[in-house]
């Protein structure tokens, strides 16, 4: 039997996944002009990959428990698209031809992703609020 707290747990896993996405977006935006990284070359934008993970509980006799799954960030992948080449011969990271490769971060794209993540987060918060409302009306039974 799945209860109020498992619903909150599932929603919370969605919230933390969206927060991870928010962090990668922040990282991408902050590094949109970083031309030097620890492993050489310009910064490459990163993306989280979400996957469905089984709810780590045994709910004997419950059909629904198989349908409920947590959200987990399975990995963070690097975007392999090439960055923009800008002619800046005076730049210390310029190649012999005088071009500097900037990160493949598109600020508009990141902004759109940020809005999506933020809305998904709000949806998760709403579903937690809704579960709380249900728990409250259950407590009010017999009052």
């Amino acid at each position: 039997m799945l209860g109020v707290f498992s619903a909150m747990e599932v929603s919370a896993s969605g919230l933390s996944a969206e927060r991870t996405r928010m962090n990668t977006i922040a990282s991408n935006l902050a590094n949109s002009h970083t031309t030097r990284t620890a492993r050489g070359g310009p910064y490459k934008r990163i993306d989280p990959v979400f996957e469905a993970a089984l709810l780590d509980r045994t709910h004997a006799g419950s059909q629904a428990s198989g349908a409920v799954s947590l959200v987990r960030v399975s990995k963070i992948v690097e975007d392999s698209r090439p960055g923009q080449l800008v002619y800046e011969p005076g730049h210390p990271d310029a190649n012999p031809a005088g071009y500097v490769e900037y990160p493949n971060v598109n600020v508009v794209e990141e902004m759109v992703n940020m809005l999506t993540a933020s809305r998904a987060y709000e949806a998760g918060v709403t579903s937690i609020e809704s579960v709380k409302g249900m728990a409250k009306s259950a407590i009010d039974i017999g009052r």
Partner: protein
Amino acid sequence: MARGVLLMRPVDLFSGVAPLHAALDYHLERHNVLSSNIAHVDTPGYRPKDLARVEEGSFDRVLGVTIERTSAAHLAGGEAGTPEVGRAFTDATAGGGADGNYVSLEREAGKLATNQIRYDIVSVLVSSELRGLLWAANDGKAG
């Protein structure tokens, strides 16, 4: 002339509450499933699930027995002791995106809100059922 004795059959006082209890269980369980769908709004390849109400009178449950399996290849009958509140199914009718995710946030949020209202209604019904019992227990004076 002997007067007949009117024998009252024993009545379970809470027989009116039991089906409502099952309805509360079902809606809470369904809330878990719908919360999981909303949490997976960004998970690639995720197909939203839903929970269908199981018909009350499946054959073995009406009899209160467990169907015996004479071969391992037979489908398992319902366990007599474990009530099943619903049957999970995949509800991927809303058009999927390029990442194979079929979750429509509006649809799921609508289902979630509907489910909450239904839960609240059932809990109000339970309250009034119990208030009726209280009224009867107090000789119709208070409650």
